[in-house]
């Protein structure tokens, strides 16, 4: 099938586009209308958006245009069109998590991240499809059908933020919000040729992000350039009274000093990520990035992360354990889907039928897995042990960062696989082998487009993955801007 992706030029990014609104070359209203037309022409194939909220977006745009005409300061993101993953609560339209259990759910409040983006002038245009409750790596486990990769609609866009990544790659928005619990921003960004940034755990409020793994989840942008990631991050980050896990640390302006001189960079390349069973196209993209950095004078340091392969096992205990607890709220009583009542049926049966009807197979699987590892008799062997390994993984990162500033590796072992490949659960989970440990340790990480891989007659984007110590977003994004320019 023909590609519906428009190759992303980092110079034609959100930052460049909002400048055209600010200096009067176009209007926010004209941009929203153009985006709606673009969505109408490609969304039938891609299924990236579940719903556009055109009325809300056009009202916001008209308001912005009027304020601009009156000479008001309308914020750094004025006129930027943003797609929002459908697990981030909005009051414009539904919030479904791509689940039948929330098919008609209208949130009575809006997520802090979204409120802050609006305050900076961004215009949310709709909600994007995801693997149900953000559980998946292909965006196929979605109650509204699979999302498709704009670079090759026979392929998946990755997941769980697949709709957001596809919307960016097909130029159906200037940027999109995703959420990342084990790689759900970075893996789809890599599969779709976009930038995907997961900040440090606690940097962006999770208030209004429908909870999956509360100690792992983080909101972040999928976008066209590192510069875009920085401005979107800056607009959303910072302490929020509604989320007690948000950090009190000051949010630095990450690109205030621009990119860094590559000669000052110490880049650690984990042996396990470089020598893992990667697709040849992924391997050559990483080697190319390493060569460019070396040529530019960067110091490349070999580091070891021997626990890399244990990350997935750790994650598939902690994530489902937290999910089984978080998703217990969906019982058909206070909101969401409720099964038809049957005469004489008690409350317990109604809960069970409601949840069995409302949740898809992958969500049910993870709830049961989480319940199992938390249950009496298995708690110490699985859950407690996973939390102990979590500390070992963090210690391993701490030790690696003694000899380097940034870690560089591939984002995923392979480029996008085919829709309907029907990977078994464990194979599907292994997609996240390089991304998941950043969630386990709470570190900031970013995926950057790093070229293409040829796979079975298809030319597909691949990404490189940069990780930094906790709260070192400024270091990470400055280094990422340097890598981005070297790969251009």
């Amino acid at each position, binding site marked *: 099938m023909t590609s519906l992706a428009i190759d992303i030029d980092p110079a034609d990014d959100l930052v460049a586009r909002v400048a055209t609104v600010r200096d009067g070359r176009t209007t926010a209203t004209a941009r929203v209308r153009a985006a709606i037309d673009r969505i109408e022409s490609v969304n039938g194939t891609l299924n990236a958006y579940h719903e556009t909220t055109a009325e809300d977006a056009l009202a916001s745009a008209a308001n912005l245009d009027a304020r601009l005409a009156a000479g008001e300061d309308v914020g750094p993101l004025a006129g930027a069109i943003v797609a929002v993953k459908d697990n981030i609560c909005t009051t414009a339209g539904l919030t479904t998590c791509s689940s039948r259990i929330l098919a008609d*759910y*209208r949130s*009575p409040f809006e997520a802090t991240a979204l409120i802050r983006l609006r305050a900076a002038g961004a215009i949310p245009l709709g909600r994007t499809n995801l693997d149900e409750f953000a559980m998946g790596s292909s965006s196929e486990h979605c109650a509204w059908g699979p999302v498709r990769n704009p670079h090759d609609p026979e392929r998946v866009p990755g997941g769980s933020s697949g709709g957001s990544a596809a919307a960016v790659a097909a130029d159906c928005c200037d940027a999109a919000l995703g959420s990342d619990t084990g790689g759900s921003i970075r893996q789809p960004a890599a599969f779709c040729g976009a930038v995907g940034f997961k900040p440090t*755990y*606690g940097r962006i409020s999770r208030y209004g992000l429908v909870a999956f793994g509360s*100690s792992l989840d983080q909101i972040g942008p999928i976008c066209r350039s590192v510069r875009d990631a920085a401005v979107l991050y800056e607009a959303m980050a910072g302490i929020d009274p509604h989320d*007690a*896990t948000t*950090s009190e640390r000051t949010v630095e302006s990450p690109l205030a000093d621009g990119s860094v001189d590559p000669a000052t960079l110490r880049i650690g390349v984990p042996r396990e990520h470089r020598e893992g069973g990667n697709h040849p196209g992924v391997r050559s993209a990483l080697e190319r990035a390493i060569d460019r950095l070396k040529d530019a004078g960067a110091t490349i340091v070999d580091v070891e992360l021997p626990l890399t*392969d*244990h990350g*997935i*096992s750790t994650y598939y*205990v902690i994530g489902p354990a937290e999910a*089984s607890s978080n998703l217990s709220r969906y*019982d058909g*009583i*206070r*909101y969401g889907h*409720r099964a038809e009542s049957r005469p004489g049926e*008690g*409350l*317990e*049966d109604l*809960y*069970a*039928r409601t*949840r*069995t009807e409302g949740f898809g197979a992958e969500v*049910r*699987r993870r*709830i*049961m*897995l989480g*319940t*199992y*590892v*938390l*249950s*009496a*008799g*298995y*708690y*110490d*062997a*699985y859950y*407690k*042990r*996973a*939390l*102990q*390994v979590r*500390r*070992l993984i*963090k210690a391993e990162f701490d030790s690696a960062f003694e000899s380097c500033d940034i870690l560089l590796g591939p984002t995923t072992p392979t480029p996008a696989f085919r829709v309907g490949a029907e990977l078994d*659960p*464990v194979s599907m*989970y292994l997609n996240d082998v390089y991304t998941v440990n950043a969630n386990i*340790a*709470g570190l900031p990480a970013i995926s950057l487009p790093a070229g293409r891989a040829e796979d079975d007659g298809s030319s597909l984007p691949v990404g490189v993955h940069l990780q930094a110590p906790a709260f070192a977003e400024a270091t990470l994004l400055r280094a990422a801007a340097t890598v981005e320019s070297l790969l251009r």
Partner: protein
Amino acid sequence: MSGTDATPDSNTDSNGPTLDDVARVARLSRLALDDAGLAAAQADLTAILGHVATLSSLDVEGVEPMARPHDQVNRLAEDEPGPTLDRQVLLALAPEVEGDYIAVPKVLGEGGA
């Protein structure tokens, strides 16, 4: 939460959960699975837990469990009333209401979980 079942906490079950285990987990998860659903869940859980069992090869003796990144501590809010969501807005979300109450089937006469 440990040590009350027959299975000792120090061991993962290398053969995976039995069908009875899976039925118990389904009940605790408030899921109504038929026999085919239970068998499929047993196969899935066995495969995933088999992968997870590799963690038992690591030496975690004396390692403090880490429930959250950065070892954060809870930040408590002042105990002061603040704005809340409107009752009618919240009631409108409920599948079934009676007056100002959310309606549920009768709960008396049921066994506990």
